[in-house]
């Protein structure tokens, strides 16, 4: 008995540490954003909304946020069909070269981001795509596509193939069957993947750093450039925008599919 009591204590202590460790940067940014001073000190000397007021005046931050949202939309719009269809194909059909295909589609994951960034910069340059915002969305889609495929594939692996057979048996032609049987069945995975892709794209930094210039700079790149010079509280207020986005995404995810989806076993 004492052994299991001790184990419970150790596990509890590590998890408590994890919780604090995970939350700390977010909490600190939140607290710092309300500081009245021009530098960040602890404990904060008071409470003020001045940095939020400043933020509303700062056009460059608002423009960068808008561009980041555009990047998120382009990325989601592309990865939604591409990732869903690929996951369906991989999971539902016996394909030749299936292992090779999986390895190829894992390339975005095996190629280091800095290499992907430079490579995409060269390819986009040749295609004449540099200097606009939408190609950053394409790039975000390319480098994060495995997350979309993973999310949908997890749902497909749980899908009963007899449903589609039954639909076909009852005379449903392929497009009908796809939209009324297959897609609703994998909807949790599709929604989860789409949400994750949007958030990842809005946060995308390293590849954006190489694909954007002063006119197309996205929010994470702008924050990065600002951190490099001097750490001021206005950045904390900008960061809170990301905290709000994250909270909204988690709330949506929980409402639409339930966060428990990530606990499901693949064999299940």
């Amino acid at each position: 008995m004492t052994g299991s009591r001790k184990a419970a204590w150790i596990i509890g202590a590590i998890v408590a540490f994890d919780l604090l460790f995970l939350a700390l940067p977010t909490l600190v940014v939140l607290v710092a954003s309300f500081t009245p001073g021009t530098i960040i000190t602890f404990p904060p000397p008071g409470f003020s909304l001045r940095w939020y007021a400043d933020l509303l005046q700062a056009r460059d931050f608002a423009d960068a946020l808008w561009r980041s949202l555009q990047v998120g939309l382009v990325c989601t719009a592309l990865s939604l069909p591409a990732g869903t269809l690929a996951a369906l194909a991989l999971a539902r059909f016996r394909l030749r070269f299936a292992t090779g295909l999986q390895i190829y589609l894992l390339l975005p994951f095996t190629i280091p981001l800095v290499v992907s960034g430079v490579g995409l910069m060269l390819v986009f340059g040749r295609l004449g795509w540099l200097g606009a915002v939408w190609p950053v969305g394409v790039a975000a889609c390319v480098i994060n596509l495995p997350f979309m495929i993973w999310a949908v594939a997890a749902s497909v692996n749980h899908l009963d193939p007899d449903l589609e057979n039954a639909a076909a048996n009852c005379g449903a032609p392929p497009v009908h069957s796809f939209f009324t049987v297959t897609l609703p069945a994998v909807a949790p995975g599709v929604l989860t993947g789409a949400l994750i892709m949007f958030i990842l794209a809005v946060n995308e930094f390293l590849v954006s750093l190489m694909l954007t210039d002063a006119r197309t700079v996205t929010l994470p790149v702008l924050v990065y450039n600002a951190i490099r010079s001097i750490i001021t509280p206005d950045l904390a207020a900008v960061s809170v925008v990301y905290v709000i986005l994250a909270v909204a995404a988690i709330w949506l995810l929980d409402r639409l599919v339930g966060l428990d989806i990530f606990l499901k076993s693949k064999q299940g």
Partner: protein
Amino acid sequence: MASTIHDKGAGRPIGLRLLDLLEAARERLWPARMAALTPWLFLLPAVLLTGLLAAGLIPLLDASLRPLDRATFRLAEDYALGNYATLATRPVYGVIALRTLMAGLVVTAATLALAFPYAWMMVRTPHAWLRKLLLVSLFLPFFIGQVVRAYGWLIILGKQGLLNALLDGLGLPPSSLAFTYTAVLIGLVQYMLPFAVLMLAPALTAVPVEVELASASLGARPFATFRHILLPMARPGIVAAGIVVFTLTLTDFAMPEIMGGGGNDFIASAVYDAFFQLGDAGLGAALGIGLTLVGSAVVGVILAFFGLGTLGYVEGREQRS
């Protein structure tokens, strides 16, 4: 053809009519005799998108084989291995590579140690509220980008930061963690923790709780159950989490760049600097190719031993080793 779906009555819902239109278009563009190729059509967008990435490797490989001509400051016309020779002989790259590799090992070990109990409690707890708390605490930082989190850590570890305020309150001497290697490692572990937990959790779910209970009731101490039951049964998840954390650390740019203060660059920073500061695309490309090869080799070796694990998109006979 007597099924209701083909009854084209006036009462047919608008949604189904739309599907009828799509079906007719499909019949024209993709007739039934093409059905065998349908999976390949499904794969096409993803293959093309990933192709943009693959295409980017070609000019990189090309540039890596062309040393910079110092006289004209352009890449050489003829292929040579000069860039790779530079990498092998310039000690600074050895130092950077070693620093990056060390970080990969330390961060992977620390992250797995912190993530395993978290994932276990998330999967096993009987309390719904605790599971929800653990899930939300995991996703909040996961959904907040690396730059913002690094900024948070700078506020914590900085000279007038939270840590020094706490140390001061306790009457202890101030620390100077900001812009050190340790700071980079702390930031990286925090960044990787959600990835690791999310890869471990499904693997732990696959271990029936009864097996753990049986082990305990047969007299195994908790550590023995962990060592002989949980660890081997959750291996696919541990391998996947380890690979993800190790490769992401090996190739990370933002944390060492922001938290390291310029003196703790990783390989990715060296690649970036070669391209955008030194203006030596050949050297940068060689560094990038080298980093890709090292990363792929590590992943390849681990996969050869353990199979695609939870990293593969689908469970199938082909994927099991």
